[in-house]
């Protein structure tokens, strides 16, 4: 996990859309897509806006009345997973952090819950439907009879 200056969305490889209670993020390069709810969605919103891990830790600790040390320890694997999946990238050092909007001060409904990333890989086959197997001397792909599968 990084304590660096914060994160950014890994655009243009990754795009996301926010819904009530859920963020759906799509990695356009790998074909994987993700569901983030609850604290995972809160984390993603803040991180996408440039917040650093210590800043997010403070927000979570305040919102959920939780011990900052426990929050920080709890979110570390999640941060690593977001970076490993290529959804977030560390913001370059020296780049000023963007101001991020405070989360709504909604009543805390329960104790701090560990953020969880739900991953879907059922679309990866579509990206593997690559028509390009061989390229002839003019740069055009040779069709390989029967080779490509087809989208359903």
């Amino acid at each position: 996990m990084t304590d660096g200056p914060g994160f950014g969305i890994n655009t243009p490889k990754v795009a996301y859309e926010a819904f009530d209670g859920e963020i759906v993020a799509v990695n356009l390069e790998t074909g994987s897509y993700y569901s983030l709810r609850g604290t995972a969605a809160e984390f993603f919103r803040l991180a996408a806006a440039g917040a650093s891990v210590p800043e997010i830790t403070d927000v979570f600790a305040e919102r959920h009345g939780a011990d900052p040390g426990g929050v920080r320890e709890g979110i570390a694997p999640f941060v690593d997973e977001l970076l490993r999946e290529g959804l977030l990238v560390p913001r370059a050092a020296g780049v000023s952090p963007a101001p991020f909007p405070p989360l709504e001060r909604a009543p805390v409904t329960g104790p701090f819950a560990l953020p969880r990333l739900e991953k879907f890989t059922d679309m990866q086959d579509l990206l593997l439907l690559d028509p390009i197997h061989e390229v002839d001397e003019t740069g055009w792909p040779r069709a390989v009879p029967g080779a490509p599968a087809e989208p359903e």
Partner: protein
Amino acid sequence: MTDSRSGSPASSAVRRSVRGPVFVHALEEAYGKAAAAAGTRAFTLRIAGRVVRLVFAGSALVAFARDALGSLEMSGGSAPDLTVNLWDTSSTGVPPPSAPWTPDDLRPRGEIRGFSKGPVFASLSLSGGLAAFDETSVRGFFWARDANLLTIHERGAPLLSLFAWFFRAHGVNLVHAAAVGRGRDALLLAGPGGSGKSTTALLCRAFGLEHFADDYALVSGAPRPAVHRLYGTAKLLPSSPAMPGEGDGARLERAGSADGKTLFLLPPTPGGNDASGFALRALVVPRVAGRGETSVSPLPPAEAFRALAPSTVFQLPGAGAASLASLAALVKSVPCFALSLGGDPAQAASAVAGLLPPA
């Protein structure tokens, strides 16, 4: 002096701005040679209110386009909003121009680096052919090595990338979904392959609803979205309970795709090609339970988005954040439902019909 080999975004933009128009000119020349060698055929379509003229060098690709798009054919001499020139090498003897890319430029989804953001778009098809679209001249090109090599997927949804590029510029999104309806109202059935949307759509057709789309539909105008017809085809596994039988007008086009599906050409249905389309009333996500009662329940928009958006953008070259944003706006603008498909096929059609306004 600028180093044209540098990898900076600015130099990439410069290369793209030069390479695209040069490639379009080369395509025009190649198509012109094919047309001179084999003569031309043409027909005109009205799709979502837009006039699309398809001009073929020779006749080898005419059936490829007309089989799936024939019900949208129009008469009269309206000026086209989009003209597409099509040719194949096998029947005309004219090859495509030299490819202005290297093997490293070829990406998943048939994308070609430098040709996925406009103003010149290009992608390769499953059979190794090319679709290209020039936003500036609003002209498209389709080249195939041999009409006989076109896959069932291409025959069921010809010129898919071209339509996606052209209509996106007019605020109309191509979505991976089936569509059915009644009167001027429509529903989208969304989900990945195998989720039951094709079967459900054809069961609805047998039940008396109109079949607007099997795999791909055009959708315009959130927050009051409308569905527009595109292809008059359907693909099914032989085991589907909705396989068309004799007497219902569907024509078997070709069996035995790589995924075991069979392509059917549905009988032409008039209407649905104007700008107003069919009012989208709901988005339905079917899931095959296989037994028990068929049931309908409300579905959070995020789940509907997950059923519709990834399978749409991962099939369309160049689709990205903007397409996802449009699809998010779409699912937020209509009620969304989960349809659990039980053991009785007739219940599926009845459940879907119940989500439409009364006739």
